[in-house]
């Protein structure tokens, strides 16, 4: 699979290291340790450029030397995707972490890729604004990382995904080209929308060095209400009824855990009068189910799934039980797998029932949080072989419905299971795009769909 023989690679790396030391300074180059492995593949060097020009030069040097590059932000989602075919260099954006411009009166921010979500949120909050996106691990996840992985949370229902929030980006391509596209204004149709192309591309087309986002004002008030549904069908009926109502809710999800009754959560963000009036209307829609004022912690459901807590998910909102796992931990020590699923809103119950059936047949524990727009995060725990059959079985069913299932975390024994599934008839076109941007497959080789 490697483009060059091992001896050549070793020689290339030595020459490359000498060259990049002069580009970024020797203190910003270090040998990779076992801790730095990427899904079991051991890289050689970790390099942290100080600005985007340095980053582009390092990238070009690696490309010229036929060395594979793994871009790295906070490292929270490195387990996502397929293991790389090759991994020589880790290119860290840790030092590109400046907030370049928060144009608060224009509701935009331009920020470097290595800035963490939390750092960004704190800056924006000073002007009572936010990037309307509740990404995973905000204290460590970076702007570049969430863009590359297309992470999004419960606010997506109202504010859209990252592709709707990003309005400009600069990309460093494998050949060292630095290219900006989009702009600093919210409304702009000049040229191709490359910020969207880079969003969710898993760093396979270029390294995002900075991005501009549209912002939203912080809500004046927010209120979360929840209710318990009899079963999955009833939960779906409630979701669809709320979606079909005139309510202007910001988030709507359902939490399913094994055989427990599903719980539906609704978030209102409005003026005090707006929140109160809508909560009243919601009562009518949900009747005869009783609604309770639950806390904001129910919106951490997705994060809890990623933090390995099926039981967490079950207990949250129902008792004051402390989390059973370290919520900040990113490694899943017990054999469990996590996947992102996407179906139509009317297919949520059907998907859940298919999961239940397959999970019970394979003796695995399971839980899933579904947003009303059909995006779910599911966690299953059990023996790796059983997890694999559940995921394959479920993927088959979901793809037949026109949806998709992407595996994000899995035990080492399951690494051969494709993370992405079927990319459809556009896969050749995607390969052609990759070839144009990164003809030598320098960036994240093999990690994306169809072996890209």
């Amino acid at each position, binding site marked *: 699979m490697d483009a060059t023989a091992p001896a050549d690679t070793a020689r290339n790396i030595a020459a490359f290291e000498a060259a990049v030391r002069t580009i970024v300074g020797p203190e910003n180059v270090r040998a990779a340790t076992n801790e730095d492995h990427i899904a079991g593949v051991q890289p050689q060097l970790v390099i942290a450029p100080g600005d985007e020009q340095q980053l582009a030069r390092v990238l070009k040097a690696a490309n010229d030397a036929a060395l594979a590059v793994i871009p790295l932000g906070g490292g929270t989602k490195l387990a996502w995707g397929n293991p790389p075919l090759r991994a020589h260099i880790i290119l860290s954006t840790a030092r590109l972490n400046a907030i370049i411009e928060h144009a608060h009166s224009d509701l935009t921010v331009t920020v470097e890729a290595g800035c963490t979500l939390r750092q960004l949120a704190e800056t924006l909050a000073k002007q009572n604004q936010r990037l309307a996106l509740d990404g995973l691990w905000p204290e460590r996840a970076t702007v570049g990382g969430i863009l590359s992985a297309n992470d999004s949370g419960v606010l997506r229902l109202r504010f859209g995904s990252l592709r709707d929030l990003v309005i400009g980006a600069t990309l460093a391509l494998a050949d060292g080209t630095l290219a900006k596209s989009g702009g600093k204004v919210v409304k702009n149709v000049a040229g191709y929308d490359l910020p*969207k192309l880079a969003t969710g591309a898993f760093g396979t087309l270029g390294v995002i060095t900075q991005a501009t986002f549209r912002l939203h004002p912080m809500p004046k008030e927010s209120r979360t209400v929840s209710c318990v549904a009899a079963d999955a069908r009833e939960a779906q009926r409630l979701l669809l009824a709320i979606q079909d109502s005139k309510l202007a809710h910001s988030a709507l999800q359902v939490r399913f855990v094994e055989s427990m009754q599903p719980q539906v959560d609704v978030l209102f963000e409005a003026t005090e009068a707006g929140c109160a009036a809508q909560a009243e209307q919601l009562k009518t829609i949900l009747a005869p189910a009783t609604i309770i004022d639950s806390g904001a912690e129910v919106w951490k459901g997705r994060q809890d799934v990623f933090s390995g807590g099926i039981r967490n998910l079950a207990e949250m909102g129902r008792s004051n039980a402390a989390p059973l796992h370290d919520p900040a931990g990113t490694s899943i020590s017990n054999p469990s797998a996590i996947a992102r699923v996407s179906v139509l809103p009317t297919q949520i119950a059907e998907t859940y029932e298919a999961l239940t059936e397959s999970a019970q047949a394979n003796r695995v524990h399971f839980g899933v949080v579904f947003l009303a727009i059909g995006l779910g995060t599911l966690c299953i725990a059990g023996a790796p072989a059983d997890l694999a059959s559940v995921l394959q079985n479920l993927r088959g069913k979901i793809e037949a419905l026109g949806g998709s299932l992407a595996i994000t975390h899995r035990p080492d024994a399951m690494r051969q299971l494709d993370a992405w599934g079927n990319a459809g008839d556009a896969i050749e076109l995607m390969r052609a795009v990759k070839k144009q941007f990164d003809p030598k497959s320098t960036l994240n080789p093999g990690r994306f769909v169809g072996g890209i």
Partner: protein
Amino acid sequence: MNAAIAKQFRDIVGSRGLITSAEELRTYECDGLTNFRVMPLGVLLPENTAQVQAILKLCHAEKIPFVARGSGTGLSGGALPIENGIVIALTRMNRILEVDIPNARVVVEPGVVNLDVSAAVAPYGYFYAPDPSSQSVCSIGGNVAENSGGAHCLKYGFTTTHVLGLEVVLPDGSLVHLGGKSLDAPGYDLAGVFVGSEGTLGVATKIILRIVKQPECVQTLLAAFPSTNEAGAAVSGIIAAGMLPAAIEMMDNLAIQAAEAAVHANYPNCGALLLVELDGPFAEVESLMRHVDAICREHGASEIRVAQSETERALVWKGRKAAFAAMGRISPNYIVQDGVIPRTALPQVMSEIDRLSKETGVRVANVFHAGDGNLHPLVLYDRRIEGQEEAAEALSYKILEICIAAGGSITGEHGVGEDKKRAMSKMFSEPDLETMQRVRCAFDPLQLSNPDKIFPTPRLCGEKPGKFVQHELESAGIAERF
């Protein structure tokens, strides 16, 4: 058109589907930007995806460039034909294929008119949000090509926000599906790149749209200000107060006069008019509208009206939406410009435009989507007076330079097309443009799909020279042209 090629096209679309007579072709020689005109070799009117595929396969084999066209309302010359090429008019592919209310999706063919989507879902209490002023005639396919906006995109987003998936015929005639009915399909967001690519990446034959529930209540406030400065300050005040109205529109005195003359919208005669629309749950809109009213008064609004009925609201909007066409009432000719600036730069940019207008004696009326800084200066002139057209064009281009200098964009919703290719080099560097064209080379290595648009300098894609020269049949003297 060469007879053998014409026969092959006729075999695909039937004789009703092929136009070659000079007289009929004239309808297609330009789009809404009428100062560019090119006669195509022929116009094809396919009725289904298979026909589009067959047409593009033939174009690919014969290296005939093509331009897809919807209703032809575009304002940047995006649907301007290419010499030696054909136009594919998608007006006959105008069926709404699927209305899926529970999932809030509608699947349409590209020739479906924008407003017809809203009409189809209105009985269920939904609407299709992107609302370009031409929405009663423009097509969804054209909206996809241009990533059309409209007055309400401040809150609801643009066409790209509402397109979830596409069936696309690539320039080699193959069929691909980008995105889909469910979200986050695996792979690159090629649907996101295709929307707004101005017909340069292929032809969309099916479009999956997201529809939106109609809000419980809509209120529109009209406020009269002494000048655009005060009105602009009020807009900033509204945004700073943490509100996101459905729309904020501004018109200056010249634009007000024109709109009044054209549709009698009953606008107050003032220096600048602000139109603020809030929508959402009743209690929410009520409480926010009081706040908007107070902010407008704080910034010197002399007269404030809230439309009291749906009829009044429609009339208020009618004046705004008719503003471009209304210019005919006050000037024989005009150029519609489409620049974007960070909203905070409005006073500075306005005074700059005003200064240039006075210096050159060219009148400029201003209509803006003020919430998102999208300016539509209307540069007025009289073609019959020598030198006026050139002066107007020069001023219009200068306005774009001002927008770029303010950190904005050369186009907010009309597209680059033929009109603004030159300005692209002012906004983007050579590597930026070269990188965008890598996408083009992946989709269309022969550069047959609406070539010569958007980019000032076409990039070579490796296999073939990028710029189309002359059709070989023509250079050999076999083919003839009208």
